């Protein structure tokens, strides 16, 4: 019937003013929350439960810039399910970084197995993290630029680029989580 953007009375755009979103959320909560339907009919109570659940989901999804992009991509049929599927294969743009990182992590594991001091391993793992973090920061900037371009043009090619960046981003986050595990091992 509707989507999260239109439910909150917002255009399908990626730059959302946080204070405005909060205000809309509160105004709608004051209309829909089950607290105000205690003495209502069963039909009204059920609607209140459904709509306030939907509102909470909408607010949560649109509040976060990344889940906002993922939702838009789903809405525009650019991403099936939630993007987690895409994180298995190495995105072409990351091949080089991933290759270097995996070599380094292998060496760290070997070094640990042969009893290298923990602080030196830690320093190496943190060193390995640097280029990946730099990549992530670059991605954040790309996403911001692309979001602004979508809002200005509504060009579907921008959505394709956003999709690539999001899949890469998920992959990068998995890499960083892997390094984190290595650091705490």
């Amino acid at each position, binding site marked *: 019937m509707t989507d999260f953007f239109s439910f909150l009375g917002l255009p399908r755009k990626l730059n959302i003013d946080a204070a405005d979103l909060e205000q809309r959320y509160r105004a709608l909560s004051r209309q829909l929350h089950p*607290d105000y339907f205690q003495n209502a009919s069963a039909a009204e109570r059920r609607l209140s439960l*459904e709509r306030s659940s939907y509102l909470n989901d909408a607010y949560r999804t649109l509040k976060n810039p990344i889940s906002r992009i993922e939702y838009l991509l789903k809405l525009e049929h650019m991403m099936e399910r939630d993007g987690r599927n895409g994180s298995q294969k190495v995105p072409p743009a990351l091949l080089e970084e991933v290759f270097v990182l995996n070599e380094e992590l292998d060496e760290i594991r070997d070094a640990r197995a042969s009893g290298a001091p923990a602080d030196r391993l830690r320093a190496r793992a943190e060193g390995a993290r640097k280029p990946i973090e730099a990549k992530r920061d670059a991605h954040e900037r790309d996403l911001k630029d692309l979001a602004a371009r979508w809002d200005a043009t509504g060009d579907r090619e921008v959505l394709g680029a956003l999709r690539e960046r999001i899949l890469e981003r998920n992959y990068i986050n998995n890499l960083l989580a892997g390094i984190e595990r290595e650091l705490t091992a």
Partner: protein
Amino acid sequence: MSKVVGIDLGTTNSLVAYVKDRVPIVIRDADGDALVPSVVSLTDDGAVIVGREAERRLLTQPGRTAYSVKRFMGKGRADVQDEARHFPFRIGGEGDAVVKIGLGDREFTPPEISAFVLRELKQRAENWFAAQGEVDFEVDRAVVTVPAYFNDAQRTATRDAGRIAGLDVMRIVNEPTAASLAYGLDNRHTGLIAVYDLGGGTFDISILRVEDGVFQVLATNGDTHLGGDDIDVLLMDSVVGADLRVGPPEALQEVRRAVIRAKWDLSERDETEIKVAQDFSPAIQRHITRAEFESLIQPIVDRTLGPCRQALADAGLQPSQIDEVVLVGGSTRIPLVRKAVAELFGRTPHSELNPDEVVALGASVQADILVTGNRDLLLLDVTPLSLGIETMGGIVSKIIVRNSTIPASGAEMFTTAVDNQTAVDIHVLQGERELVADNRSLARFKLRGIPPMPAGLPRVQVQFQIDANGILSVTARELRTDVEQTVEVKPSYGLTDEEVERILLDSFEHAEEDIAARLLVEARNDAEAVIAATEKSLRVPDFAEIEREALQSGERQKIEGVLSALKMVITSSDRDTILKWTQALNNTTQHLAEVMMNRSVRAALAGKNVGDL
């Protein structure tokens, strides 16, 4: 109109409160005592005693007197194995089955024991209303608080306790959230609040943002097995050590009372004596300093800090960003606890309101909101634990993540593995871990009535709905045939609806005719609600316009027809007829209700936009 109260059903003490002339007040007994000890005792001739009198019987009749029963709510016998030795009453039940508490020759489930406490509070409130000269002093509905970190089974057990006590639990509210509501009344707070709630048996931390009268919980965490009771047990072990198990139950209670006194003393003084005379030879007398006490309980205080940090991280906040810290629960009187909280958040916590009373006061405010429909204040709470289902390989797939604002819903698609399969087993869990075995099992159910089709073809959408009480319900629909599936949820730890009904029937206070009368009243109330809602919609000033734009031709006439039919049968004593016509009016007005709700949503957004333009 009957009265609706707020109840704090505590581990150690319980209270009832009410909003009178817009001011929440705690209802006291004739002696001015606000607290009802959550203690229930069974006399030799089978009478049930609750509160102060029962508390005195802890010393004389320890085997017939139950306390701290909140710790057993929604638990299986195996869950409470470790602590059973600390209780002088019988703790029975088997394996995963619900805990049974033995008093004398009778056995009770934890909701039944809690129901005795709730009945006492209901009675206290009714006496008070009668003394105030109220004509209708009956209390049949209540808002009841639970620890924020209570899971689905513990919440359901609390609601069952209400039903057994003859109280319709209109809403289950989280204790720290209720406390924030009581605090937020005096001054128009805006900002970020942390509520640190260390009670008799449970610990909660909740982080809220308060703005524009909306109390929005950002994150909550806690431990439902951490509180003043654990401090008492530590002290008891340090005083009598292994003798605890061999001593008579009377002696155990004597020691418990002595260490609780010492604990209270040490919040005011630097040293005290633990004295136990009776039943011990030689009698115990031990000197204890605050420093000794603090080093003893340091591990307990430390255990509260991890959940605090996790809640802050989940809310995306640093401790220094919190504007105010509020203390709730009797155990926050302990100086070491205050010091730890002050250090973590870098500010002195608030404790202007009595930490024992603040939760009940907040519950009564919420009760008032529900009754009056006052939209000035709104609580938006969260579900404390993630909800998931078991998938292949014993892995949990999350459907609703923790700290989601409630009501919350999530859906999952299921299909069949073999041809013509008509049922699928589903296992619902609550918790944060990846493996099924590490999470709390909520319920198992079988999806039945799937139309026979080749394997993999059915598309059964299962909808999980957490309501504003934090309680789960499940519905399912096969999308290819649009057939609704029956979902019979069997709770893993708790009473089925049938068991609650049976307890109600068995209880001597509820003769069968009473129950029939109550069911009839409930049916009439439901009928009145839908009549009132329908008439309200038909009477809105611009109804003609709504009808022209959004209703089908003849829709209004049809609604009016069913409406007058229901008004005719509502006074009859035939419950089934009333239910049938109530259902009919609900169905007939379904579309109108949707139209009206869409209209209010549009109006709310338009009201907002006006300011923007």
